[in-house]
C-alpha cells in the first residue's frame, strides 16, 4: 500500500489528504511542526481579538483524523532524501514515503532591513507568530505603539488586531495609496479613508529605513525614509510572504522562489509534488501569478492533486479567478480580473460606482471594444459567486451584467439595495438605456 506523506497541515495538505481518503485506501501521514491539528490560518486574527479561541479555528474535531485514518505527526522535517525516499526529522527520527507532497506554505518576507531580527519585530503568519504577538503586544501599557511595515492584506489585519486592544498603530505603506498595485484608484482611496477613520496613522509613500534597538536588543523605534523616527515597542513586518522551503536546499528538488512544479503539480523528482503557497508554476496560468499564496488556490491544488495521486492524472486547472478579504469593517469580494491602473492593459476599461456617504463601491472591468465583462470588485455589497462564474464562462458583456445585476446580490435580507443607483450611473456614464431586471429565482437556480 502506498504511503503518502504530506509535509504541512494547512488547507492544501489537509484538503489533499481528505480527498485521497475519499478516493482510496492509501496510508496517509501529515507532518507539521506548527500545530497538532489543522486550523484555519485566516482566523488567527480573531483569536487575538477575542472573537474566538484557538480550538474554534479547527474545522474538524480531534477524533476526525483517527476515524479517517489520517496519521498526524508533530515534527519538523530537516532534510528530504529523494534517493532513499526518506525524511529526516528534527530529533533524529526518519519517515519513509512512497509519494511525498510538499505543502509547507509561506513565511513572512524580510528585505534585509537593519534591525529586522530584533526582539519585538515579527511577522504574522503562523500560530507561533500569534503567540509571539500575544507576548509582544498584550495591551497598550506594554505596547505603547506598534509600527506595521507593508500595506497588504496581512498588514491591515494586523492593524485591526492591535486596534482592538486600543494600541496606537502607525502603518507604513510603500505605495502612494493602500494596495494600489491590486486595487483600482477609487477603491484604494476609499480604503485609505476607512483606515484613517479607524484612527490608524496611515503613512503612504513611506518606506522603512531601519529599526533601532534599545540596550536589551529590543526594538524601540523605526526610522522612515522621510527621516522621521517613530518610537514603538512592536514592529510588524507584513510586506508579503515567500515560500517556506529552506529545508529543501540540497534535496535535488528544483527550486525557484518556490518549489517548481508543472501543471500536474509534479516536481522534477519522481513521486515528489508541491501544492499551495510553496508551489511555483513554471509559468503563471492565465493571468495568475506563478506562486499563488491564497487560501482558495491551496484548496484547489489539493483537490486536483488527489485525483492524480489516486490514478486519474489531472492538471491543476483553476477556473475563473475569485478572492475575498475584509478591510476592517468593509468586506471585499472579487470575481474575474479587475486590474489596478498600474497593471491593467489598454483594452481594460472600468466602470466605478461609489456610495455618496457609506463605504460601499464596485468596479466592473470590461473590454473597451467588445464590451465583454472581465471582472468585478465589490466593497460592502456581497455578490453571488456562481452567477459571476457563469457570466464569465459565457463571455457575457457588461450590459448583460448590469441588466441582471439584481440576481447577483447576496446581501442579507432587508439590506438596502443599490442596483438601481449603480445602473443609473452606468447609463449616464456610457449613454445607455438599461433597465434592470427584477431578481429571478429561476435564473439564479438554473445557474447554480
Amino acid at each position, binding site marked *: 500500500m502506498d504511503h503518502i506523506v504530506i509535509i504541512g497541515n494547512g488547507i492544501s495538505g489537509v484538503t489533499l489528504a481528505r480527498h485521497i481518503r475519499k478516493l482510496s485506501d492509501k496510508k496517509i501521514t501529515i507532518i507539521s511542526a506548527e500545530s497538532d491539528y489543522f486550523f484555519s490560518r*485566516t482566523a488567527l486574527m480573531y*483569536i487575538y481579538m477575542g472573537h474566538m*479561541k484557538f480550538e474554534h479555528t479547527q474545522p474538524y474535531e480531534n477524533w476526525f483524523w483517527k476515524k479517517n485514518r489520517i496519521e498526524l505527526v508533530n515534527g519538523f522535517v530537516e532534510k528530504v532524501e529523494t534517493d532513499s525516499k526518506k525524511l529526516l526529522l528534527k530529533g533524529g527520527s526518519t519517515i519513509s514515503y512512497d509519494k511525498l507532497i510538499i505543502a509547507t506554505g509561506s513565511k513572512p518576507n524580510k528585505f534585509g532591513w537593519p534591525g529586522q531580527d530584533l526582539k519585538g519585530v515579527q511577522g504574522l503568519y503562523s500560530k507561533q507568530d500569534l503567540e509571539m504577538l500575544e507576548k509582544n503586544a498584550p495591551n497598550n501599557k506594554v505596547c505603547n505603539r506598534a509600527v506595521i511595515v507593508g500595506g497588504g492584506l496581512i498588514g491591515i489585519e494586523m492593524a485591526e488586531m492591535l486596534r482592538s486592544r*486600543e494600541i496606537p498603530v502607525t502603518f507604513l505603506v510603500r505605495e502612494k495609496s493602500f494596495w494600489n498595485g491590486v486595487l483600482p484608484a477609487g477603491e484604494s482611496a476609499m480604503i485609505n479613508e476607512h483606515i484613517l477613520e479607524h484612527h490608524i496613522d496611515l503613512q503612504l509613500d513611506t518606506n522603512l529605513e531601519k529599526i533601532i534597538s534599545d540596550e536589551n536588543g529590543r526594538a524601540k523605534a523605526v526610522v522612515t525614509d522621510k527621516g522621521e523616527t517613530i518610537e514603538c515597542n512592536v514592529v510588524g513586518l507584513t510586506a508579503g510572504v515567500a515560500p517556506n522551503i529552506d529545508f529543501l536546499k540540497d534535496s535535488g528538488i528544483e527550486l525557484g522562489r518556490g518549489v517548481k512544479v508543472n501543471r500536474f503539480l509534479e516536481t522534477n523528482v519522481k513521486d515528489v509534488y508541491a501544492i499551495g503557497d510553496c508551489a511555483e508554476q513554471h509559468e503563471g496560468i492565465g493571468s495568475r501569478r506563478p506562486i499563488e499564496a491564497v*487560501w*482558495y488556490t491551496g484548496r484547489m491544488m489539493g*483537490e486536483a492533486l488527489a485525483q492524480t495521486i489516486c490514478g486519474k492524472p489531472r492538471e491543476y486547472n483553476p477556473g475563473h479567478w475569485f478572492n475575498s478579504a475584509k478591510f476592517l469593517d468593509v468586506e471585499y469580494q472579487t470575481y474575474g480580473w479587475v486590474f489596478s491602473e498600474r497593471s491593467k492593459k489598454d483594452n481594460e476599461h472600468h466602470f466605478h460606482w461609489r456610495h455618496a456617504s457609506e463605504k460601499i463601491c464596485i468596479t466592473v472591468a470590461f473590454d473597451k471594444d467588445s464590451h465583454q465583462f472581465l471582472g468585478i470588485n465589490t466593497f460592502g455589497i*456581497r455578490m453571488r459567486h456562481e452567477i459571476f462564474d457563469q457570466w464569465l464562462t459565457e463571455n457575457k458583456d457588461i450590459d448583460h451584467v448590469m441588466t441582471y445585476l439584481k440576481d447577483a446580490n447576496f446581501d442579507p435580507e432587508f439590506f438596502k439595495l443599490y442596483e438601481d443607483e449603480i445602473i443609473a450611473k452606468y447609463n449616464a456614464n456610457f449613454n445607455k438605456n438599461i433597465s434592470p431586471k427584477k431578481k429571478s429565482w429561476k435564473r439564479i437556480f438554473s445557474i447554480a
Partner: protein
Amino acid sequence: MGNFDRSMSLAGEPPKALNTGQKLAVVTGMIGLGILILQLFNLNLGNTALWLTISIVAIFAGIIWFSQAAYAHKHKGIKNDGVWFKSISSRGVLGWMAGIALTGFYIVLYFYPQYLGLVKDGDNTGLIALFDPLSKGLSGNPASQWFVYGTMYTVAILAFGAKFIWKYRHNKYEQLRTVSVMFFQTAFAFFIPEIMARLNGDLPYYDLKNMWPLNYYNFERYRINGFIDSGSVGMTMLFFGIISIFVISPFLTYKYGKRWYCSWVCGCGGLAETAGDSFRQLSDKSKFAWKVERWVVHSVVVFVTVMTIAVIYSYLGNDTSKYWLTKTMFISGVAVILTAIFSWVMIYKREELAKDAKYGAIGYFTIIAVLIGMHFFSGSGNIFIFKAETLRTTYSFLIGSIFSGVIGTGFYPILGNRVWCRFGCPMAAMLGFQQRLFSKFRITTNGGQCISCGNCSTYCEMGIDVRAYAQKGENIVRSSCVGCGICSAVCPRGVLKLENGPEEGRINSKDVLLGNDVDLMDLVNNK
C-alpha cells in the same frame, strides 16, 4: 492558547475592560436591581408605585447607557472584540456567578414563590407587593409571582433588545427581527392578556402567540371550559389555538422556515436573542452534543404529545353530551393524523432523513401507536399506562419548570442562550422537522468563498457547525436552525445568506467546490 487571564476585574485591559460610561451604567442598572433585591427582604420602602418606577427606569437606563457607551463611539460592524476574554461571556467567574444567581431565582420563582412575597389569602408582601400597583392598574388584580416575572421578562427583552439593535446597527435583518420580538413580547405576552383579564374575568390567561406544544397546558380541562364559557370570544381563541397548529404555523414555516416563530415571534427566543446574546458563543458544537440534542428534544416531543392526548382524553366523555368530541372520536382522529404524517414522511421524504432520524421516527411512532392501542384494551378507567394527571404534573415539573426555566434560562452563561430551544423545546423540534423536510428556507453558501475561519460556528447559538457545510460549498438545511442570521452577519467573507427559494436544489452536496475547472467537478461529483 488557553492562557488568557480571566480576571473578573472590571478594570482589566482593552478589549475586556469597561470604559467609564459602561461602569457608571452598570452601577445605575445595579441600583435598579438592588431596589428589587431589598424588597425581597421585606424592607418597607413606602410608596411602592414610585419605587417600582425608579427601579425599572434605573434598570432600563443602565442597559441603554451601557450600550451607548459600548457602541456609540465605534463604527458599525461586528462587535465581538474581547468576547472570549471577558469573564461574563467566557464561562469565567462572573459567568458562573450569573448562572448560579439566575438558576437560584428560577428555583425560587417556580417552587418557593412565598419567598418572593406571594400570599395566597391576603395582601402580598416583599417583591411581589412592589408590583401590585402595576398589576392592579392593568388587570385589576394583585400581582402574582408570574406577573413579576412577566414584567421583568418584558423589561429585559425591551432593554437588551435596544442594546442588540445598537450592536447590529449595520444589519437590517437583525434589527427588524428584534423589533418584532420586542413588539410581540410587549403586546401579546404582556399587555393583551392582562387587559383581556380585565374585560372578561372568565377567560384563561392566553398569550396568543404561544401555541401548543410550547403552551402544553392549552387544552387542559379548566382552559377548555374557560374558553367555552366565555362565549364567542373564548371560542374564537380556542379556534385560533387550533388553526395556529394546523394551518398558520405549517404555512409560515413552509414559506420562511421556523425562524418566523423562533426568531421573530417567540418569547423564549426573544429573551435568548436579546438578554442572552452575550452567551450565544457558549453552545456546544461537537457532534456528540448534536446527537444528544436529537434524542432529548424528540423525546420531549413524544412526551408532550402523549401527555396532551392523555389529558384531553381523560376529560372527554363517551357521548357528546358534555363536549362535542367523544373519547373514541378523539383517539381515532389522533391516530389518523399521526399515521398520515408518518406515512407522508416515509413515502416522500425518506431519502432526506439521515439514518438515525428514520430509526427515531419509526421507534417513536411505534410507541405512540402502542399507547393508543392500549386504550382499546385497557378499558375507560385508566388511560394508557399512566394516569393522565401523573403525566401532566411530571411534564409540567420536568419540562415546563426545570428544563425551560431553571436550565433553559438559568444556564445561559454556562451552556449558551438557546439551551431550551435546542434541547428541550418541542415546538422548535416540530417546526424544525418541517423545516428540514418541507420548507423553502435554507442558508445559502456562496460558491467557494468560505475560508473555514469558524466565526459562523462559534456564534451559532444552536450549536450547528455551520462551517462544516460552508467549507464544502453546501447549503445549510438543519432542523434546529432558528434563522437568527448571526452566522451570516459575522462571516467576514460574505459567504452565508438566509433565504427562501425554490425547494428544488435546496439540499445540495458538492465534493469539489467552485473555482476548480468544470471537468474536475463533473468527474468528482459523478464518480
